[in-house]
């Protein structure tokens, strides 16, 4: 175990450099996935598609929600937060 720890410790500068180099790529992958799985149509934040914001339904989840689902819960609150963030971007 001690040997393994020492082995990793020797590599930390190299790993730090690789993490710094890879960070932008990882950010792009994550952003791509988040944008795809959220209810906002993919690429809506693209400047050339701003006009599509007027056509997009801001909170499609609300249409699927039944009246008894309207109690505040963590999941919906998170969704609303996300929509709020996208709404801010669209308004620019």
């Amino acid at each position: 175990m001690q040997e393994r720890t020492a082995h990793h410790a020797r590599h930390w500068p190299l790993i730090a450099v690789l993490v710094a180099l890879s960070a932008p790529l990882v950010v792009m992958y994550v952003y791509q996935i988040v944008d795809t799985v959220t209810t906002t149509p993919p690429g809506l934040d693209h400047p050339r598609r701003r006009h599509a914001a007027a056509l997009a339904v801001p909170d499609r989840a609300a249409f699927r929600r039944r009246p008894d689902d309207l109690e505040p819960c963590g999941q919906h609150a998170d969704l609303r937060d996300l929509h709020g963030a996208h709404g801010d971007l669209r308004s620019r």
Partner: protein
Amino acid sequence: MYVSLTLVIFNVGLGLFLAVSTFYLPERTSATFRAIWFMPRILPPVLYVLMWKWLMWDNGFIASALAPFGVERINWMMHSEYHAWVAVILINGVVGASFGMIIFASAIKAIPQTMLMASEVDGATRWQQVRFIILPQMRWPILFVTAYQTLSLLASFEYILLSTGGGPGSATEVWAMAAFRTALNNYGGNLQYGLGATFALVLVIIGTGLSLLYLRFFNFQALLAKPRIER
């Protein structure tokens, strides 16, 4: 300038660094970094460029991340000629580094482990191993990556077309794109096949000349020659 910067810094430089550094890391760690850097090569160009736009445009990640610090929201990809060229070099460079890493990593794996073990017994440092064992045996793959990517950067323009479209204005319109627009995609409708073909022919001549130069620079004849012991 665009070809040489992309080629030296990213395709060969970064590719080589990624291959060598991941070679010395534990298997799982190196596999993670290689997977991250392998993706740009296998992603469809449209999706790959879209990712960069999500990162760099005025409502993208960089602008959103810097906005709380009072930095004006600008389009980091198209704000000026300088921004556009940096974006074009980065977009092409990361794909090139991905390609270079794959070639170099497989070439390093092919080096007999006994040589590296023997050098460790002799007390060689990692840098000495890279300098005197790994790099001398990488001449062939470096020649291949350099020549292949030079021709690729000269002739292909899809990442530029998808990212900046040759703009702002025609600042990032490379020769291959100029040939395409002149011969096949002229907005005015007066397609000039002959002029476009001439542009492309000039690229062929430049590519051939550079390839011959690389063969001489890397001493291609010596690479192909039989080992001296067999003469």
